[in-house]
């Protein structure tokens, strides 16, 4: 392994601009004559719009325009869409309600945009927005997923607010398996609604060039080409080739910046209408009301086991809250990214999962780090842990009895796991966590008035999203391949134009490591270009832990083509047969001789083209690949959480965290560990601190950082992170992907630990001091300290 090759903890190239304040995020971009957009948003959860009075606003200083949904519709701007078709059990298609960028007729959640002010300055825009008078007729609302079906109907197309009623698995066989069970564990689980809250708020800057009839959009997007496609083809803003989308530096996404939102649509439309560049930047409280939220499932789940603790079957019934409108990928999260992981790491013969998706008067819900897999892992790992306690089998032992041991393994829920060794991760994690010493630590904690608990989460997930035909057959409207163009310059440096997009993942470094090692050229000589639809060929973007498995695989395939062509050039240079050329460590050698030329020489010759004719070989050295993965990848591992709970206040503190993950091949262990740390932090946030709360009037009570508890440094421990490796057989590098694993594994580990400490299972997330204290009041007599 070289100092800058695959497997090296290379320090990041992108850091320099960030640590010196020279990053260029969307709000850092300014265009001459820029105007600002301020949205007028509904203060009601559900209301008819009787009238919108804009005349007072229009006369305010600095106002350029005040626009409403009526004008948007008159200009024939199309609606936002959900791009993944899900059918109900009865075969009917999901009930997708219209979602215009500015609503007309009715508002459907607090924050729903009804008008926009375009003004010279932000301050003037805000002042004018306050003067827009909307006459609302409030309607009853419903925000609770469990109550949606009996609540006031929100959309005409969806009676009982039901979007779809879907299921996966063999119900009859599952019921039969349950009938044979010696033990059944039952749980009612709420997977709490979360707000992603990337620290950079969403922003859009749109500009129209009348001379060329060209629109440009700078946007905080994880997938500029997808944004361009949706805005062109579905929203019908402009033909695709007349729309350029640029994602500059983006300050975190976690899924929330995948989707196409009303704000960028409105900015584009307003820029063309007013002939001024239009910029919008979310205020944080606006982010709370408009960024797609995550999770929000209500589930009843059951696990059937035989007398030896061998799992016979699992079934779950989930109500998934999708909010007031169907966001871009929303339908897929509680279906094909959730139910398909219900086997966990276990050999479960029968599984049946039913999911009802509902509308409520809340912010739309869509993918958020883990997207369906945290929800699945929580169900499976809580069932297994509680079953172990009920059957008085050690939690680790119960898991071992049920781990899948031979691969490939076809689960009853579509996924076929390709390679893994779950026992290895568990064993290593238990060693690293010193599980043997737990009882001693527990006694020590008790002496200090603390209840100590330990919780496992042996998770698996499906990512490296995804084989296009497979997801297409499941309803996806797009393929999920990735693209790369490797452009060798005459002077031997290389640019890689990747369809992936980095918003913290370090692609400028890791992708360069790959290219540098393969071509034998210095790491400094490789540039990664991403985020601009004018520069980079169509790509699907970054989410679903796919940029290693799919994005890098595309680069590998392009590098294969580069190597093949370079060998041809080298053959001409050395007057040898192409088949006699070997390439190693940056040198092309004629086999069996000491004749060689370096990569740099070959690059120059490819462009100077003096050593061959055009009929023999095309000049140039630039190759493209569109890589479609052959399967999902299946990262898996074991997280072990230790907590101390204050027996008087219920406050839980995480005192140790051990994670052993199998991500297959690791390009940069420093970056991979960072991804695990960040994922764990978000998972701990879900388990202990976070939760979006609506009151009975549909107001988002947790509407700012004052009330929505974000994890701070003092809420978290340092993490012990280890790796095992079983390479993925499904892509050339053997990468599984690591971006979401921490968020997927963590919540179950935390809740398993706290429930272990307090001896009660009646605990929901977030496990605040109050919640834990309340659960403790219902606990049977505390478990003995010495076991």
């Amino acid at each position: 392994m070289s100092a800058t090759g695959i497997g090296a903890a290379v320090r990041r190239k992108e850091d320099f601009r960030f640590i010196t304040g020279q990053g260029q995020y969307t709000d850092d971009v300014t265009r001459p004559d820029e105007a600002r957009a301020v949205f007028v948003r509904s203060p009601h959860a559900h209301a008819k719009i009787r009238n919108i009075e804009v005349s007072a606003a229009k006369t305010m200083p600095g106002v350029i325009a005040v626009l409403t949904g009526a004008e948007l519709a008159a200009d024939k701007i199309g609606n936002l869409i959900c791009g993944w078709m899900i059918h109900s059990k009865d075969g009917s298609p999901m009930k997708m309600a219209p979602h215009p960028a500015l609503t007309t007729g009715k508002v459907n959640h607090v924050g729903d945009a009804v008008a926009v002010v375009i003004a010279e300055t932000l301050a003037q825009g805000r002042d004018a927005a306050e003067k827009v008078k909307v006459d609302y007729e409030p309607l009853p609302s419903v925000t609770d997923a469990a109550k949606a079906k009996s609540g006031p109907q929100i959309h005409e197309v969806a009676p009982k607010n039901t979007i779809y009623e879907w299921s996966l698995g063999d119900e009859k066989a599952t019921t039969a398996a349950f009938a044979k069970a010696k033990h059944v564990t039952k749980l009612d689980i709420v997977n709490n609604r979360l707000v992603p809250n990337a620290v950079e708020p969403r922003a859009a800057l749109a500009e129209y060039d009348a001379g060329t009839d060209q629109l440009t959009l700078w946007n905080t997007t994880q997938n500029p080409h997808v944004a361009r496609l949706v805005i062109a083809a579905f929203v019908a803003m402009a033909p695709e080739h007349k729309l350029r989308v640029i994602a500059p530096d983006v300050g975190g996404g976690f899924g929330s910046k995948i989707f196409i939102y009303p704000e960028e649509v409105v900015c584009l439309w307003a820029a063309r209408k007013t002939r001024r560049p239009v910029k919008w930047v979310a205020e944080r409280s606006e982010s709370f009301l408009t960024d797609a939220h995550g999770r929000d499932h209500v589930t009843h789940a059951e696990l059937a086991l035989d007398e030896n603790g061998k799992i016979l079957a699992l079934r779950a019934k989930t109500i998934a809250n999708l909010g007031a409108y169907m966001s871009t990928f929303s339908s897929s999260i509680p279906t094909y990214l959730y139910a398909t992981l219900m086997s966990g790491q276990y050999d479960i013969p029968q599984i049946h999962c039913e999911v009802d998706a509902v509308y409520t008067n809340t912010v739309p819900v869509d993918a958020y780090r883990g997207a369906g897999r945290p929800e699945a892992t929580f169900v499976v790992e809580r069932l297994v842990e509680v079953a172990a306690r009920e059957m008085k089998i050690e939690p680790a032992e119960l898991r071992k009895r049920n781990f899948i041991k031979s691969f490939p393994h076809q689960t009853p829920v579509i996924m076929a796991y390709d390679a893994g060794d779950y026992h290895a991760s568990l064993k290593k994690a238990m060693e690293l966590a010193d599980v043997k010493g737990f009882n001693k630590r527990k006694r020590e904690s008790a002496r200090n008035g603390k209840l100590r608990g330990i919780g496992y989460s042996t998770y698996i997930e499906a990512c490296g999203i995804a084989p296009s035909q497979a997801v297409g057959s499941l309803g996806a409207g797009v393929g999920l391949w990735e693209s790369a163009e490797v452009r060798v310059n005459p002077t031997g440096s290389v640019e890689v134009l990747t369809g992936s997009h980095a918003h913290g993942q370090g692609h400028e470094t890791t992708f360069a490591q790959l290219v540098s090692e393969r071509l034998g050229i210095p790491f400094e000589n490789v540039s990664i270009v991403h985020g601009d639809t004018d520069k980079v060929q169509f790509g699907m973007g970054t989410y679903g832990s796919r940029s290693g498995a799919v994005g890098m695989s595309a680069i590998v395939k392009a590098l294969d083509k580069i190597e093949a062509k370079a060998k041809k050039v080298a053959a001409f240079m050395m007057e040898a047969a192409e088949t006699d050329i070997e390439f190693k460590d940056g040198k092309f050698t004629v086999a069996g001789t000491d004749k060689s030329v370096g990569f740099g020489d070959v690059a120059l010759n490819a462009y100077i083209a003096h050593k061959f004719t055009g009929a023999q070989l095309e000049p140039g050295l630039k190759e493209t690949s569109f890589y479609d993965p052959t399967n999902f990848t299946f990262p898996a591992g074991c997280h072990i959480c230790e907590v101390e709970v204050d027996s008087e206040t219920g406050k839980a503190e995480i005192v140790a965290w051990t994670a052993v993950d199998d991500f297959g091949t690791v390009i940069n262990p420093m970056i991979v560990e960072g991804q695990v740390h960040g994922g764990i932090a978000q998972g701990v946030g879900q388990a202990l601190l976070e939760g979006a709360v609506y009151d009975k009037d549909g107001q988002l009570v947790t509407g700012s950082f004052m009330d929505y508890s974000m994890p701070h440094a003092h809420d978290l421990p340092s993490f012990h992170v280890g790796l095992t490796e079983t390479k993925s057989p499904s892509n050339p590098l053997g990468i599984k992907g690591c971006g979401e694993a921490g968020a997927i594994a963590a919540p179950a580990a935390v809740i398993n630990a706290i429930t272990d400490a307090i001896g009660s299972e009646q605990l929901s997330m977030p496990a605040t001091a109050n919640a834990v204290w309340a659960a403790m009041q219902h606990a049977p007599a505390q478990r003995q300290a010495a076991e």
Partner: protein
Amino acid sequence: MPTVSMTVNGKAVSGQVEERTLLVQFLRENLRLTGTHVGCDTSQCGACVIHLDGIAAKSCTLLALQCEGAKITTIEGLAEPNGPLHPMQEAFRQNHGLQCGYCTPGMIMAALDIVRRNGHDLDEHTIREQLDGNICRCTGYHNIVKAIAAGAKAMKGGAPSRQAAE
């Protein structure tokens, strides 16, 4: 519109602002120093932290006019252009203390203030407690804590930078 004058990163500057213009807006929009970021509207995220007369302050919670005559240092003022990085900046890079980079300027400026108040030998607990005013969503803080501890130690030798100890 009133005019405000102050020193930013060693340079005398002035500009026209409204009474309600925040310092962060003055820095970003009037002076085009976009390294200082806005991440929230309740003064909690810390992405806007700068140094005001040598002390960390949240530029989102200061009016520009309040800073008349003040000495302001932003992230852009830590290292000489084309000069070496400040040890704290270098420590963030060496320890992978950043991912998306958005919280990073505020994090680094806050870190320097932790050193000013608590010295160069910082333990994990102190750093974690002292970061109460800074939110990071990407890193889980693990490497930020390492970076700050390392940066604090490296500053012991006396940092060659414009950031004089005040």
